[in-house]
């Protein structure tokens, strides 16, 4: 019985880790290709959730699952074109300040438009209920979330590995000058990467909305957790981030079972240990290729 409870908590932890991962992968993609750490990434996640809440009545859950990320990607494209583009080759500190400012603006704008109070958003009735595997009971909706997150990560990986688009992006991460010397202009790829990254964040926002609630500060909350993942795994490393997210998730799940009050703090402790013993992160800081 105890084993099953631990398993359930670990699965919950992995679920949290998987969603930190969706945010962290977007961050690391934008950073690898553009050299910009997007502190406003959480804002796109929150935006995704708000779109879902507001459009769910007309479009249904399946509808917002598609429409919300698309709408957010469109906004991402505009922000990239107007603001991000000026900062790719600038001092990274300026990029941090810019995106931090944007995050601040987005949070306040959400507060202004939708109010400070959390907006309830419930799991669609079709997905309520439990799944039973022997003695093991698990929420149907959470299982679906886990599947979608895993599919998104796998899809991203396939996109980067198996398509010309992904190869240009990976080549651009390695050697942008060489890519240009082959006649490929990276600007449209950069814009697409931003759109893709914020769409992933929005997808995470839609799916997590019924569980974590929809409120203006939700972006900042998940963003800090994702940064912990990124600090452990390393910006610019696909698998580094994946491993870090899984480890954070499992540790979180175990802490919830054995010492619940420290659940929130567990990942920070993990980060502390990594900083003490592997100051450059688990997988190093300088990763030459994006894998």
């Amino acid at each position: 019985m105890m084993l099953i409870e631990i398993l359930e908590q670990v699965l919950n932890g992995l679920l949290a880790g998987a969603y930190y991962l969706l945010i962290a992968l977007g961050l690391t993609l934008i950073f690898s290709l553009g050299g910009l750490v997007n502190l406003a990434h959480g804002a796109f996640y929150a935006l995704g959730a708000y779109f879902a809440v507001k459009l769910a009545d007309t479009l249904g859950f399946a509808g917002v699952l598609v429409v919300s990320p698309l709408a957010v990607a469109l906004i991402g494209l505009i922000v990239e074109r107007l603001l991000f583009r000026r900062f790719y080759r600038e001092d990274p500190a300026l990029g941090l300040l810019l995106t931090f400012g944007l995050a601040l603006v987005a949070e306040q704008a959400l507060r202004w438009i939708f109010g400070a109070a959390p907006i309830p958003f419930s799991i669609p009735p079709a997905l309520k209920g439990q799944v039973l595997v022997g003695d093991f009971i698990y929420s149907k909706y959470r299982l679906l979330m886990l599947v979608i997150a895993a599919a998104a990560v796998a899809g991203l990986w396939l996109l980067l590995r198996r398509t010309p688009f992904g190869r240009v992006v990976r080549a651009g991460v390695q050697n942008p000058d060489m890519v240009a010397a082959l006649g490929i202009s990276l600007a449209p790829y950069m814009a697409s990467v931003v759109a893709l990254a914020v769409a992933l964040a929005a997808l995470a926002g839609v799916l997590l909305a019924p569980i974590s609630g929809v409120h203006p500060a939700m972006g900042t909350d998940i963003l800090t957790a994702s940064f912990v993942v990124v600090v452990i795994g390393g910006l610019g490393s696909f698998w580094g981030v994946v491993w870090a997210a899984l480890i954070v998730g499992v540790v979180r799940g175990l802490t919830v079972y054995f010492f619940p009050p420290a659940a929130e703090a567990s990942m920070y402790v993990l980060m502390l240990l990594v900083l003490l013993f592997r100051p450059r992160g688990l997988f190093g800081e300088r990763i030459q290729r994006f894998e």
Partner: protein
Amino acid sequence: MSLLRSPLAIAGLVCAVLPFALLAGGLTLTSATDVVIFAIACMALNLLVGHTGLVSFGHGAWFGLGAYAAALAQRHWFAASVAWPALFALGFLLVASVLVGFLVLRRRGVYFSLLTLAFSALTYAVAFRWTAFTGGENGLGGVTRAIWLGVDLENPWVFYAIVAAFGLLVVHALARFHASPIGSVLLAIRENEQRAQFIGYATQRYKQIAYAASATLTGFAGILFAFHHRFASADPTSISSSGELLAMVIIGGMRSLLGPALGALFYILFREYLSIWTANWLLFFGLLFVAFVVFSPTGLVGVWRRLTTPLRPRVVEAAAMAGRAIEHGLPLPAFLLPAARPAGTLLEARGLAKAFGGIRAVEEASLAVADRTLHALIGPNGAGKTTLFNLVSGMFIPDRGRVVLDGRDITGEAPHRIVAAGLARSFQITNLFPALSVAENLRLAVQARDRSHFDGWTPTAAIEPVLERTRELIGFLGLTGIDQAEAGALSYGGQRLLDMGLALASAPRALLLDEPLAGLAAAERERVASLVKRISRDIPVLLVEHDIDRVFALADRVTVMNEGRVLVDGTADDARNSRAVQEIYIGAGTAALVAGAQSHAGRGTGPELLRLDLVDAYYGKSHILQRASLVAHEQEIVALLGRNGAGKSTLLKTIIGIVRADGGSIRLGGEELAGRPAAAIARMGVGYVPQGRGLFAGMSVRDNLELGRLRRAKSAGLAWSEDKILEFFPRLQSRLDTPADFLSGGEQQMVAVARALSGHVRVLLLDEPFEGLAPAVIEELFEVFDKLRSEVTIIIVEHNLDLVLALANQAYVLERGSVVYEGAASELRENVDLRRRVLWM
């Protein structure tokens, strides 16, 4: 007058007027106190952000922790007291900030910022959740101010006066700190942390001091805040509060001491007035913040300075080297003279080896530099000279071997320790503190070896011994007259000289100079060379230099490296007369190494395809190409020759557009290339194979080729289809699915060439295509290039002269960025005397 302009006087005046001005504007005394409290916090935060260049997103946490510490201390241990809780809180902040600083400073750059963000999030989570201790959502109320030293602090005017007094104290202390040796090192870290290490500073310690001081002071503002509002809560520790502090700093102006205080005033006014109209004033504040980051990152102070600049005379009019007072033949300043003068070897490298990835840059390199000698290290590109330099100076840690200085083993020590042991270096790519003056650059380097370098209170302007030595050094280097110019505004020659001066300033026992003459004009080379010679009479100099004429004329001893090993180690004559050395530079002049190579006399038969007219190009301030002109016809191979650093690779990069052409024109079949981005030029039919090949690791050969074709295959049929490419490189057929980085060197080179050809390519640029390949592979590639001649025009840079002259139709020789010889390749191939004249010395 200057007293009135001092930050303290301005701050004092503002503090005196502030409450009355705000009251007159319909605000309260509470707002005035808030302004001063936030001003303290922002100035403290700016010590990190603007002064040291470390952007902290988590200083709200310190503000909040200060408030909590004071409130909790009063509640649990020091009821009704004000001073004791405040002192306790300060002590707590100091200890905590040292510990946290140690952790977050383990990572640099953006990671540091992310860690501070995480720290803030963690603090908020704990403060918000640990309700029993912190009061959670409601916060901790009931903080009292009571009577302190007979003064009733409950009186808001009295409290304002005390806060203002503390504010002025902070301004004074920060002004002193900024002007002190430690403050000057923090500026140096902001400008160029690596160089700060290489002039002898343990930068990590300075950063830790800055972090602790900044955090503690911000926390002190939090303590005042707790007493002011009589409560402490989790709010200030939230990330958005940290953001507000940062926004105040940026909006006010991070490049000035009082700028952040102005930002705090602006914030309070904005909040008080705008919140009358809307509850969402923070939204507009955020928008303003973003606008400042985009349009004026130096804030209101920066805007003001820009508006008033035309009204003020510029301090530095001309940074031209012409403004210098040159005093020839000054002796080395006394403080640079070594105390002891041992005979014999002073600096020794024993069997050093270093590999990067699989490439062995240096294997088994040994050399010994005797005291009071000028020892030159020469060799062709890729010989491993700079790597050896970096191993000796502590930039890289060697895989094997030892470095011994004056009997002491310094292998693998941190750069600042190596400087302390008496070894200093200059850099090949100019490496200065660009926003600081020439004098300040040198003063920092002198200060590193002075006792005062860890002083946080005495103004640097009052430390006479350091200033005196700096002046002597400025005179010796011939920089008098431009010593107040900004280092970044100097001419290239001036920057090179200053770079050398920085190394010299730390009074080393041995000096490493990395190409001090590169890129200098003729007269300047003469001067700097004689300066180096003069230095070497007292301090031994190890010199890497491409100008071999100069080296042979000056050096007491010469070490020649090739392919990671020492080839010759002896006197200048030994090196000059060595056949092996000559062969590296001008080839053997024997018959072509490659069987089947036939002579290509002069120009190809096709019409003109590519024409460069008087092209100039720069790297930063370094003028690499100077009015270079070149013509290439269809169906021919053009060889670019010349020594290292002559500008050959840059010429190729300028054609493809990776380096911007700053003057002149580059025409391909009548169309102008200059000024277009690289991608556009590549699409017009230029293929480029860089030195080192530039293959994309982890991707198969097929994928690499596909990337070459992706944007260059025009609709009108493929000029270079995969099939056609495989005709030229049949070996790649069976390798199509192998990752490119798993191939042998020769196969990799083939992939790189094949990729450059994929698509519509008319001109192929090859940079050192034979480098590091085995003879059999060279022969194979040679034949491929020979065959390709009938398809595309090839411009090739190659240091193996026998090989490239056997291949090419036409040869151009570059020297310092200009074409100094042009002629049929066959002439240079056959006439070794001509070759020696043009390419040797």
